C-alpha cells in the first residue's frame, strides 16, 4: 500500500518549513500543496477547521495540525533518522527547548520586528536576554541535542534564516559572532545540513515578504 503523505504549506511559513525539514531528514516522500493564505482552499479549511492554518500534514487520510504536534507525529510514525534522543530526560530537554522557541523567542523577536521608535527600543533588551539564554544552552554543543540534529534544532530553525532577514529589514543587529559565538556556530551547523540547505527559502524573496509584513503592521498600528 502506498502511504500517501501530503503537506499543506506556503513557501515562506517558518512553521511549515519545520515539517519539510523533518520529512527530508527522514527521507519520506510527500506531495506539497501550496496554499494562498489570502484565499484558503476548502481542503485546508476541512483539514484544519480549528486554526485554519498551515502546516497541515495528511497521512492515511487523517490530518494533523500544529507544527510541533506534526513533528512528534512524524517521529512516532517513521522510526528512521530519529529526531529525538533515547533517554527520557534528553527527550524532555528537547521538548522543553522546542517549546521555548515558540513561547519565548519568537514573540520577543516579532515584537522587535513589528515595532519602531521607542516601542522597538524597549523591545530589544528582553529579546537579547532570551538570545543569551539560548547561547548558554548551546555552549559546547554542535546542535541542541549534542552531535546530531534533532527536534529542538528543527524548532529553532526559523531563527537560522529569519534572524538575518529581520536584521536586514530593520537595520538592527541583535546578535553578532563575538557576543554569541555558540549561537552563530549553531546557525552555520544547522544551515549546512544537506536536508536543510536544499530546503531554504531564497533570502531576497524572504526580505521582500517580511518587509511587506512589517509595513502592514506598522501602518495598522498607526491608524489605531
Amino acid at each position, binding site marked *: 500500500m502506498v502511504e500517501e503523505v501530503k503537506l499543506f504549506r506556503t513557501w515562506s511559513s517558518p512553521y511549515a518549513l519545520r515539517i519539510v525539514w523533518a520529512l527530508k531528514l527522514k527521507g519520506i516522500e510527500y506531495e506539497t500543496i501550496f496554499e494562498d493564505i489570502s484565499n484558503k482552499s476548502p481542503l485546508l479549511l476541512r483539514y484544519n477547521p*480549528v486554526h485554519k492554518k498551515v502546516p497541515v500534514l495528511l497521512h492515511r487520510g487523517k490530518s494533523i495540525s500544529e507544527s510541533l504536534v506534526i513533528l512528534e507525529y512524524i517521529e512516532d510514525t517513521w522510526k528512521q533518522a530519529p529526531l529525538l534522543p533515547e533517554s527520557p530526560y534528553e527527550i524532555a530537554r528537547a521538548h522543553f527547548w522546542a517549546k521555548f522557541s515558540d513561547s519565548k523567542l519568537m514573540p520577543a523577536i516579532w515584537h522587535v520586528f513589528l515595532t519602531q521608535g521607542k516601542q522597538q527600543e524597549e523591545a530589544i533588551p528582553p529579546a537579547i536576554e532570551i538570545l543569551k539564554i539560548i547561547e548558554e544552552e548551546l555552549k559546547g554543543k554542535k546542535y541542541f541535542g549534542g552531535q546530531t540534529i534533532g527536534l529542538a534544532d528543527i524548532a529553532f530553525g526559523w531563527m537560522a534564516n529569519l534572524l538575518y532577514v529581520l536584521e536586514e529589514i530593520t537595520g538592527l543587529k541583535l546578535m553578532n559572532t563575538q557576543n554569541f559565538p555558540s549561537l552563530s556556530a549553531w546557525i552555520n551547523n544547522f544551515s549546512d545540513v544537506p536536508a536543510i540547505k536544499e530546503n531554504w527559502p531564497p533570502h531576497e524573496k524572504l526580505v521582500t515578504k517580511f518587509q511587506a509584513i512589517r509595513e502592514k503592521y506598522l501602518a495598522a498600528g498607526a491608524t489605531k
Partner: protein
Amino acid sequence: MDKQSEVVVFGTWASPYCTRVTLALKLKGIPYQYVEEDLTNKSELLIQYNPVHKKVPVLVHEGKPIAESLVILEYIDEFWNNCPKLLPEDPYERAKVRFWANFYDQKIAPATLSLIKCKGKERERAIADCEELMKVFEEGLERDYQGKSPFFEGENISYLGIVVGSGSCNYQAFNEAVAVTFDAEKHAAFVSWVEDLKAHPLMKEMLPPHDKLVAKIRHKFSLSPEPQA
C-alpha cells in the same frame, strides 16, 4: 529508596499546572516528595532547578530537573512506561491529545486569565471570547472522540483529563471568585465531562479545596469579595 532515584515535585497547591504533575504521579503509583513553594519568595533550589523560567511545577528525578507541565507529563509517561499509560500508543491518537492540550494551554487558559483582569465593557468582550473558544473546544473534542468523554481512558483519567481537568474542575471556584457565570447549557457536553471527572476519587483527592481556592484567586488578582456591579 536511594536518594538519586527520589522524585521531588516543586509546586504550589493552587496551581492547576502543578496538580497535573501530582495527578500523573498518583495515577501511575509513583511515590514522590512534594515541596510547596512561596512564589513571592522563591527558594534557591527552585531557581537552581528552573533558571530559565523560575516557575512551578518542576519535577526533579535522579537529581535532574524537568520544567513545563506538559513536558513533565510526557517525561513521566516515557520513564515510567507502566500501565496506566498517560498518552495513547497510536501516533494519530497521540497527535490528537497533544493538539487539544496545546489548544487548552495556548487559547483557553490565556483567555480565562484575561477575563479575570478585565472590567466593564472589556470584561463582556472577554467573556464572549471565552465562550467562543469553549465552543470550538467542545465541538472539536466531540468530533474527535465521537461524543465520548475525552477525559477518561476506560476507568482511568486520561491525559486530557489530567491536562484540562486540573484547571476546569475548579470552575465553580473560578466562577465564584471572579463573579462570572457561564451558561452551562451552551456547553452541556463539556460540563458533563467535567462533572464526571470531578466525581473520580483521584480528582477528589487532588483538587484544591473550593473555599481556599476562591480566597486564593481573589487575593492573587485583588478581586473584591462582593459581586461585580
